[in-house]
């Protein structure tokens, strides 16, 4: 698993990346009441908005950690947005991307680096 400074996580299997938000991000957001997942086929560049997650208080963008094309979206979050709070780094994934440059994955933070980053916040 790799991480971004915007608190997304990504797991790469072959050239398909599963993307979600970290437990830290879910905790900061509070109770998630709505999730907007992307359309399959949408292409996104790294750093672009991929999905939207909303708490009672506010809407926040979820950014694509890697460039690629959406091949699957976790539409189950539509009925059960609370999954993002309950299992942020597993069942609460947002989308799967067929990534353009799998090598970019290694450029993201690993768990130890992300944990260090959290300490600076």
């Amino acid at each position, binding site marked *: 698993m790799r991480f971004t400074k915007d608190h997304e996580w990504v797991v790469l299997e072959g050239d398909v990346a599963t993307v979600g938000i970290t437990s830290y991000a879910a905790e900061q957001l509070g109770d998630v*009441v709505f999730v907007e997942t992307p359309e399959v086929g949408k292409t996104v560049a790294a750093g672009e908005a991929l999905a939207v997650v*909303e708490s009672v208080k506010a*809407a926040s963008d979820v950014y694509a950690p890697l460039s690629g094309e959406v091949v699957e979206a976790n539409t189950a979050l539509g009925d059960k947005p609370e999954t993002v709070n309950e299992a942020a780094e597993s069942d609460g994934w947002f989308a799967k991307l067929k990534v353009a440059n799998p090598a970019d994955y290694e450029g993201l933070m690993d768990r130890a680096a992300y944990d260090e980053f959290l300490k600076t916040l």
Partner: protein
Amino acid sequence: MSETSLKTTPLTQAHLARGARMTPFAGYSMPVQYADGVLKEHLWTREHAGAFDVSHMGPAFITLAGKSGDPDADHKAVAALVEPLVCGDIRGLKRGQLRYTLLLNDEGGILDDLMIGRPTEDEAQGGLYVVVNAGTKESDFARIEQGLGARAKLTRADDRGLIAVQGPKAADAVTRLFPQAATLGFMTFAHAELDGHACVVARCGYTGEDGFEVLVPRGFAEVVWNRLMADEQVRPIGLGARDSLRLEAGLPLYGHDLDDTVSPVEGNLSFAISKRRRKAADFPGAARIERELTEGPARLRVGLKVLEGAPAREGAEIAGDDGQVVGKVTSGGYAPSLSGSIAMGFVPPLLSEPGTRLKVIVRGKAQACEVVAMPFVPHRYVRLA
């Protein structure tokens, strides 16, 4: 605004001790939520009782200079100084009564919504209790002082603690501290003592629930707060849930649903224009307001139920069936007590009837919504006979 320049309230340390997440609001560092989070805090308030630090707001006392000693004449005199600023009937307030009213500019735009109360005691006549919003209190107080001139004095009380206790168990909790709270009906208030400290207990609030707002001396605020916290029916509630509660109650938030361009009629607050005052047309912007009352306003604040898609938040456009933009959402979000999304916004009166189907535009997508009557969640105020 930098964190260091934020003002604190007498309860700031108590919030930090309870794990509150603090946020800048109206120049103050305020708790947006505690450990429970917005959703649970909201639902707890509707089912039990929530305590809110609202010390950032603007309580104040107005006192007539050179009282005659005739209580009714003194009330009439102080009311006559305040009435030119607002559209409500201040003269007609009964002793101990509080009224929601609107501070207006010369164009009939709303400068703030506020509470004005008439004290109970003979010797306190010629005085008024006022509570204005946090974000506008400096300009409100300046305008009120200007209106009073030398004939009355405004004494700010916004250095004290102001604690709102709201919810079906609020009366139990507050009565335990202030027994006379049990004798107050909704929109009445009284001076009360606790451990020798002079306090003001008002039965009012902004959640749609029964509840109280208690003004306490600065150094005593934490004691009162902690006594409330010791009641297992009472939990601390942050600004996040305060906002979702007032939204469900259909109550406008100044600076969002109301501003100095919105008239009382447009703001769907015509109930706050007193009959006597309307007849006399003796308040700022009376001509515009009379015209709007007879001919209808250009826009009207309505409630919207979002029928599909994402919550529609402040700034989202409202469109007709043909896609034409007809208005804007002024506040909106997820309503925990309804498990759905609701909003308030302005639309032309022709589109303001409950049942009217409209669209809200969220991130470029047109989502179905419907005009519904407010409050979204029924008020549960306790009015004593």
